[in-house]
């Protein structure tokens, strides 16, 4: 059981001056912007659940996982993993024994030595009994198809191989919970599919609780029953995949090809029944409708299409999560930020909200700081 209670993590970033003089000033000033990476997140994950944790770049996903896996201490709030907090000195070892974590961006393996060496070290680190270790490593090698590279130095592995090796390293001590932060980043379609199915089998075999972040929605759809959407450090949505689709409209994209050009007048009655106006192609022979299946029967809409338009072909696609999430990111269904109006202007000295500081910036949504420099 994982419990997050109003978890916050703020980072202080020094305000950088421009030029040499500005740099000198930076050295001596105590001005900083406060980046609210995680800003009051609460959720529970039950044993055996598989949860997708998604959000745009910089939403705070990795930061949350880092707190859960003992790397960061939260600024406020608490995380309990089976009642213990990973960032508290006396409790950390117990927590760490029961979790495994993979960061797709960074390997945790010993680069210059064969994989088996790292695994052998982990055997000591986690006090894994010898026969259990042998059995489990065998299973993982089989499952993740690691035979071909098990004794090659990690340095020489391909990204896909390395990711599998990292996953095995995280699973070796039979953790109850697995945190995967972008495990499919940079992998080609085939390798990715294999990795996902391997994770699936792992879960089937060991009933591991899973928290997964990714930018590929197909990963989530294949692995998770539940999604949590994070934006600007706050949760936007927490529920089932079907739930998210319904909440943001269970849209059908209907593309109609006609045998002669049509005008927007001729689709007037149809477009009245859609939330967004239909798109008609340049040559007027193709028109796209977006229909909310929750508001009307799709079959009746199609009947009307067939009677009013000279139809040659019809294609219907369901909204995928990617589309749903994109809508959320773009429109930001977040409740209007409450702290927007307090503390107007002034020098960014000390406890200042990043929203106020970036007002002269590049006009991003929700006053988000552009972290590229």
């Amino acid at each position: 059981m994982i419990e997050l209670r109003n978890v916050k993590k703020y980072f202080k970033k020094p305000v950088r001056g421009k030029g040499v003089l500005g740099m000198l000033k930076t050295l001596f000033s105590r001005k900083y912007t406060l980046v609210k990476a995680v800003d009051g997140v609460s959720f529970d994950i039950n044993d055996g659940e598989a949860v997708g944790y998604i959000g745009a770049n910089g939403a705070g996903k990795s930061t949350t996982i880092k707190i859960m896996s003992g790397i960061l201490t939260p600024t406020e709030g608490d995380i309990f993993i089976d009642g213990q907090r990973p960032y508290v000195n006396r409790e950390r070892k117990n927590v760490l024994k029961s979790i495994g974590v993979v960061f797709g961006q960074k390997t945790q393996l010993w680069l210059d030595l064969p994989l088996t060496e790292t695994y052998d070290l982990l055997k000591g680190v986690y006090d894994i009994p010898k026969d259990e270790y042998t059995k489990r490593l065998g299973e993982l090698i089989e499952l993740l198809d690691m035979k071909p590279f098990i004794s090659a130095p990690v340095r020489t592995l391909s990204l896909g191989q390395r990711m599998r090796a990292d996953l095995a390293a995280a699973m070796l001590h039979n953790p109850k919970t697995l945190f995967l932060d972008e495990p499919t980043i940079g992998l080609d379609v085939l390798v990715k599919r294999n990795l996902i199915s391997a994770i699936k089998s792992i879960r089937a075999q060991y009933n591991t609780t899973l928290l997964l972040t990714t930018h590929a929605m197909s990963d989530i759809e294949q692995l998770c029953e539940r999604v949590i959407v994070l934006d600007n450090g706050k949760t936007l949505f927490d529920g089932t995949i079907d739930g998210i689709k319904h909440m943001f409209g269970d849209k059908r994209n209907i593309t109609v090809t006609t045998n002669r050009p049509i005008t927007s007048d001729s689709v007037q009655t149809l477009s009245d029944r859609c939330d967004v106006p239909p798109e008609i192609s340049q040559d007027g022979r193709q028109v796209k409708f977006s229909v909310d299946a929750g508001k009307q029967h799709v079959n009746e809409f199609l009947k009307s299409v067939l009677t009013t338009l000279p139809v040659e072909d019809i294609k219907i696609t369901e909204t995928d999560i990617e589309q749903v999430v994109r809508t959320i990111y773009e429109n930001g269904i977040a409740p209007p930020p409450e702290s927007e109006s307090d503390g107007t202007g002034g020098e960014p000295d000390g406890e200042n909200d990043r929203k106020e500081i970036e007002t002269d910036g590049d006009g991003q949504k929700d006053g988000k700081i552009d972290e590229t420099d």
Partner: protein
Amino acid sequence: MLKELKLYPKYVSMSLRSSLSYKADAILQILSFAVTEAVSLATIYLIVGTVPSVGIWSFEALAMLCGFTLIPKGIDHMFFDDLWILAYWAVRLGELDPYLTRPVNPLFQFVAKTFKWAGSGELVVGIVIMAIFAPQCAVMWTASGIIGIIVCAFLGIFVFTGIKLIFASLAFWVKSSGVILNTVYNFCNYAKYPLKYMGKAFLSIMLYVVPFGLFLYKPMECLITGENIWWSALWSAVAAVALVALGLFIWHRGLRRYESAGN
């Protein structure tokens, strides 16, 4: 603790085997540290050799002192070298992450992962110099004196380590504390000189502020003057315990501020 002890040989063997892939590099490093120290001895010779002696310090005695300082320095270098990495970039680049997710003391993992052969360059040069010059000094070699300097050398390892840990851990506040650490660490080089004649103020700094004088210089002076070496040993022990404890305290405090790194 027991687990860490059990794991240590494994770490050393992995570290050695992984540095084997860079054999030439390792040998060059050992040589470069040895040469650096030999040159510094030659410098002392050039300075001291022109005059017969500086007060109670003959050239032979100074050479022995020089060799002695290299012993704890070299040993610390072999075992705790990665504290430099902590100071310079590990905090800034978020390189502590993997050690924090494993159920073993993260500081232990961080320093155990590298066993630095290069330190043996200093250690060997130190022992050779001592072996050459110790018999030539006008010192009454007693059993108590010999055991005394061995104890001081042993404690000295931890004074080096403690000082490194304190200033490397400052990186949690300032992101990169390598320059600060380097400045403080380099004071150990002054312990090779006859501090007695270098001014009261400087001597006090070397004894009580950056206590390199306490466990490197003072025991040798005791040997030469015939004072009781065990007082220096006692103070070295106090310094070692205090500095390591302070270092651990700052490390633990700092770890709570550790920010990892964004991508």
